[in-house]
């Protein structure tokens, strides 16, 4: 399971930064920042937004539920099943495989979303 931000990833990147030249530092720092900021998917009115969402490999995607009903994220291809998110609840998952991943809300599977992970 690779849910939530992994402190180890950041630590490894810092080590890497020290080992590399100045040119590489900029790139790595940018990537680390992107990963830290992650990507957001909002849930409003039983709708995932944005979808599809395209992210870089190893991006952490955070879903935030703004509805008065609980929702969840179920992605069969990743065997991913979040706990129910109640109002203002969030769930995060770090995508560490390239590919296109369809997901639904486990409580309301007519809600569809898609994450496209690029290298």
């Amino acid at each position: 399971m690779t849910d939530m931000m992994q402190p180890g990833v950041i630590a490894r990147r810092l080590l890497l930064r020290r080992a590399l030249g100045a040119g590489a530092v900029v790139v790595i720092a940018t990537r680390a920042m992107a990963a830290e900021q992650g990507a957001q998917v909002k849930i409003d009115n039983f709708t995932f937004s944005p979808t599809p969402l395209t992210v870089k490999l190893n991006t952490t995607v955070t879903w935030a539920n703004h509805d008065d009903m609980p929702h969840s994220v179920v992605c069969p291809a990743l065997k991913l099943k979040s706990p129910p998110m109640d109002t203002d609840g969030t769930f995060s998952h770090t995508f560490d495989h390239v590919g296109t991943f369809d997901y639904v809300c486990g409580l309301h599977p007519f809600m569809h979303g898609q994450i496209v992970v690029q290298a």
Partner: protein
Amino acid sequence: MTIDLNPQRRGFLKCMTWAGTAMVWTVAGGVPRSRLIGSAEAATTDFTFVQISDSHLGFDKPANPDVTSTLKVALDDVTALKQQPSFMIHTGDITHLSKPAQFDTAAQLCGATKLTMHTVPGEHDILEEDGKSYLNRFGKGTKGDGWYSFNAGGVHFIGLVNVMNLQANGLGSLGNAQLEWLEDDVKHLTSSTPIVVFAHVPLWMVYQDWGWGTSDGAQALTYLKKFGSVTVLNGHIHQVMQKVEGQVSFHTARSTAFPQPAPGTAKSPGPMVVPAGELKQHLGIASVKLVSSKAPLAIVDTPLAS
């Protein structure tokens, strides 16, 4: 939309709309008949039972910050009945998030009525441990994911579970194992046996865009074709919908917690916030209206246009 007023075809069901959060069913002469809680009727010796639904214990949002109170009101209406029903049926979403404390509150409140409660789970009741927290409490003596049947008052009751494997289109499903069990369960019954089927998600297609239907519900109904009286009771959509099709009558019950919009009338099926002071009216507690059985039924064919 069809309105069938042929008394021969719908004679078994003296039907009416109701505005109570609980609904009483009377079986007179082998024929299930619904009436409103709150309607003034003398106590009879008929067999009766009550349906409540969608209590969503644990919900605390603006649509109803106190769902425990409104469930209590509904149960008070039940205990105030002149003739105590034989039992209650809860058609699911007992809790909002399947939390032990929410189940405990339900058991405590419903237990206070001293009535046996037969339940089926809603999708909100199986969020923990793949449904085991529900089954550990309510699954005793049931098959599979919690389906079962029993006989009472000359009626054969069948509780079905259609929330375990919601389909990608959002619809409920029964699954092959349950369908095979159902076929076998009714095989040896005589066709004159009144049948009452209860499940959380409507067995008929109310509104596909919101997943308000059961993908293999029609298959289940083929096993019930031979019976002269089939009554299907559902919840899930937090509003009254009725349809009569041949010898089968379909009903969905109101919630005791909060209303949901009519199909397609809102952006989503989320809880409907109504003006302050009107909630109970929408849950139907305060305003009981009985429509004569001679009046046309409020029959809804699916889906309603938005």
